[in-house]
């Protein structure tokens, strides 16, 4: 069974630029999560989708972050414009249903200069 795929693995941008991350969950998994992991901290949930609907986006900075999950399968997370404090690893995870084992991708490491 293929795991959660994320791309790119690494991204370096300058502040005020835009960036997008892509995630393809495990086939058949209804729930998809995006987390932000700042160095030295645990993952922080940014947004949770159930199929193509948003379940929780309470910690998503909506003035600069956006996410979508077209057709309830893969998802993109965008930052526009980026700030220095957005430097982090962005993790995507999926699970067969809410409250179940979460399967994580390898993450995208973003550096904002």
């Amino acid at each position: 069974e293929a795991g959660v795929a994320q791309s790119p693995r690494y991204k370096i941008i300058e502040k005020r630029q835009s960036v997008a991350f892509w995630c393809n969950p495990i086939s058949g998994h209804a729930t998809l999560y995006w987390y932000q992991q700042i160095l030295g901290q645990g993952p922080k949930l940014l947004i949770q989708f159930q199929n193509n609907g948003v379940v929780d986006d309470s910690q998503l900075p909506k003035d600069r972050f956006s996410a979508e999950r077209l057709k309830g399968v893969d998802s993109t997370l965008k930052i526009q414009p980026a700030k220095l404090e957005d430097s982090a690893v962005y993790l995507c995870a999926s699970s067969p249903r809410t409250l179940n084992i979460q399967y994580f991708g390898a993450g995208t490491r973003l550096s904002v200069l």
Partner: protein
Amino acid sequence: AQSVTQLDSQVPVFEEAPVELRCNYSSSVSVYLFWYVQYPNQGLQLLLKYLSGSTLVESINGFEAEFNKSQTSFHLRKPSVHISDTAEYFCAVSEGTGGFKTIFGAGTRLFVKA
């Protein structure tokens, strides 16, 4: 609101020694508890979970954790560690009421020395 505290940011230990990684949580409702492991440059992997039933849960690679409701703890233990256990370990909690949002602790870096 729920929160998770991992009391040690780093734990150095010699190979074949026992180890305990501490985790405390706060919540006003029933919870589900998890330990995830993250190896360098990889995503998180589930190590073990407590959903209900026996308060002692075990993983396939020798780790165990015990849910202690009175002390609101879910400490992770292993009687004899290997070099390959070197990784970051995250404790996580989900509340059992709607949403099931998962909160992660800050992580504990286990460093096993030869």
